[in-house]
């Protein structure tokens, strides 16, 4: 199963990167969201899947799932939410001001 989830993470990374390389801002934001999904799955897989009970301590249970990746992912989910919402508003403002959401048209004009 870990191999399959690794591949799924890889596919999420690939589609995320592909979207990231597009010109339109909405696609780029979708790309970053996909990337973070991929990363979460990636971290979770590395901690081994399904080796015991959920990490909530109960009397008499010895085997628990690795809690560390979960803590990392929890932090990451919240942060990626912050980033996504910031990017969304940024994209909204930028396209409103510049009347385009094409990144290639938004490059700076001065090269000096």
């Amino acid at each position, binding site marked *: 199963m870990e191999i399959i989830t690794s591949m799924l993470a890889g596919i999420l990374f690939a589609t995320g990167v592909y979207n990231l390389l597009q010109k339109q801002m909405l696609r780029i934001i979708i790309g970053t969201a996909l990337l973070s999904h991929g990363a979460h799955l990636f971290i979770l897989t590395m901690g081994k899947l399904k080796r015991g009970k959920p990490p909530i301590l109960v009397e008499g249970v010895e085997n628990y799932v690795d809690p560390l990746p979960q803590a990392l992912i929890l*932090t990451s989910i919240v942060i990626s939410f912050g980033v996504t919402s910031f990017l969304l508003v940024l994209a909204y403002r930028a396209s409103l001001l510049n009347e385009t959401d094409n990144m290639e048209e938004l490059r700076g004009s001065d090269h000096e």
Partner: protein
Amino acid sequence: MLIAVFLPLIFACLIPFLSKWKQKVHTGWFVLPIPFSIFLFLILKVGKQFSPISQSYAWIPSLNINFDLYLDGLGLLFGLLISGIGTLVVLYSIYYLHKTEQLSHFYVYLLMFMAAMLGVVFSDNVYALYSFWELTSFSSFLLIGFWNHRKGSRYGALKSMLITVFGGLSLLAGLILLTIVTDTTSIQAMIDQKDVILNSNYFGWILGFLFLGAFTKSAQFPFHIWLPDAMEAPTPVSAYLHSATMVKAGIFLVARFLPIVSLSEWFFFIVSGIGIITLCWGSFIAVRQTDLKGILAYSTISQLGMIMAMLGFGTDAAIFAAVFHILNHATFKGSLFMVAGIVDHETGTRDIRKLGGLMTLMPITATLALFGTFSMAGVPLPFLNGFYSKEKFFKTSLELEEASGIVQALATAMPVLAVLGSIFTFVYSMYLVFGTFRGEYKEDELPQKPHEAPFGMLISPMILVIGIIVIGLFPHLVNGSFLAHAAEAISGHESHAHIKFWHGFVPPLYMSLAVVALGTLLVITRKRWNSIYNVVPGTLTFNRVYDWLVDRTELFSSKITKTYMTGSLKLYVQLILIAIILGTISMLLITNGLNLEATDLARIRLPELLVVGMMVLASIATIFTNNRIAAILILGVVGYGLSILFVLYRAPDLALTQLIIETVTVALFLLVFMHLPKLEKRNESKGSIVMNATIAISFGAMMTIVGISSYTSKWFESISGYFLETSKSLGGGSNVVNVILVDMRGLDTLFEICVLGIAALGIYGMIKLRRKKEAK
């Protein structure tokens, strides 16, 4: 001694406040006591019973680098020059620089240089030496560019910086090699191990690097080109850095490492050869200069060449002569620079073609110049110190040992070249003094009406000229007390040199007389030779090489930069991704980290497979959909799919959070998307699609491989057990994930909240911005 080195630096920090505090007083008066007190401190050490002092302070003990200070005769001589000339230069600058100049800058740079230079001559640790060495280049850069509104100043500053720092880096390479070979960072300890160095494979490299450092700093041929351009600096700086002290750092370096470098059979050939070429070339070019400071700059180059040549002879007498000339050169060249500054200050020009007949108008200055130039020319008079060292130069050039081949050829030619260089030295010296102070007085061409300089300005050159005469009349005063110690410190054995005016009718005297006779002849018939002096392209060729190199480098780098700094974010992301992919894969291959034989896997079950399949389809669909709402909803499918996976993989907290966040995110997307332009059909070229797809697929594949490899190869014991064990006892909670977040790694969570706060502020700001605009 530590205080002596750092006193100027500490004081430099106070300068800006002092100059603000008492604006009516010239800042120079505050600075003056610093070099003077260091001078007094050092002069008290002078005497027959002098013995080297060494002190050590821990600096970077983990790297075995200590801040070692070592004061021997050589260091003492240089220390006295630095502090003594420094005192006079500061005194002189008080009258030279007007109060309206940025004086606090000037004196900060000057003190910084003073500290750096003292550091160079006192430090025994090679890394301390190097640091101070570069600091001198740096402060010299700042001082040359002091009048930074002038183009010439900026050009000269950059040139000197590039050339001397290039030499400094080469010096660093040499010092590192020395450290590797000898396994010590102390210079004295290195000298003790000179046999080890001689037999090491790196000896040639060490030699080359050290010489490159020394020759660039001391403006030896063909690196001399920076010194004339450095004359854009204020005259006190030229007198101090570019004649008396900094340019002698290269000579100091050769002298300091003489026991090591003189072991090479090429030592004489390289050092004396370069030195004598510099002497002849510098003095020849000096003749055709029209700028007073230009003449002095080339003269400094040639004199440095002469000292270098004497060091290259390597005999005890020659080393003594070199040391003697270091002192003498500082006295006469320092005074001449100050005289040139006075002339410039009082007449408004340094162009010797416009000057003339100033003898009657500036009698004191003219007298000072007379002594300085005659001493420089080596005119045989018993009260000029320049004559003594030049005589010793001739004498030692005649006493060179027998050698073979090309080295012998150079040794044989040496006296002839020495005389040749000295003839031109005589010519430009006479030209300098008589061109300025005798001849026709051209009142109309002078920007200002000249008159004698204020007394304060004359004090410093006067003291130096008195020095010339005193050393000339009583050479034994300086010989026994510190010159002998300095020579001893270089060569390693006792110096028995004597300085006498009259040796009888011996070859050196004939050489001196020949120089005077031929020189006078050339001066008198100068007009006929003018065309010849100007025919030779001279330094221009080397300047062209320098300019060409600088231009090319700038062009080349800006071209390279333009190819990838196009302003297209997409290109940047592509480059970053390609770098990540290549870097990771090559590291995987290099470290043999590739390991795809996964064992100990969880069982595959149908519900999970279904969710995974759905997510795969959804994520691929994000690429192909051209409908905004569809794209957002499909993204939601991926997110919810992930939260189902979290449930299946027993991560209840993650599943909850992911569900909430996903819902909010989708809502946010839907809120914003109405304002965003519609998704366009992609009209990319095929090439760009292939490019993007290749990058994306290889990135995904790489992550899969990394994931599987790292799953299989566990190199470290997981720390998760610790959290499971101590969650209750230390954190007091049974939900381990929660305990980790709020207790064990509570600080991380705090920062996470900070990130959210920053994002919220940013969003708030951006929305607020719109409101304001709309309100207008």
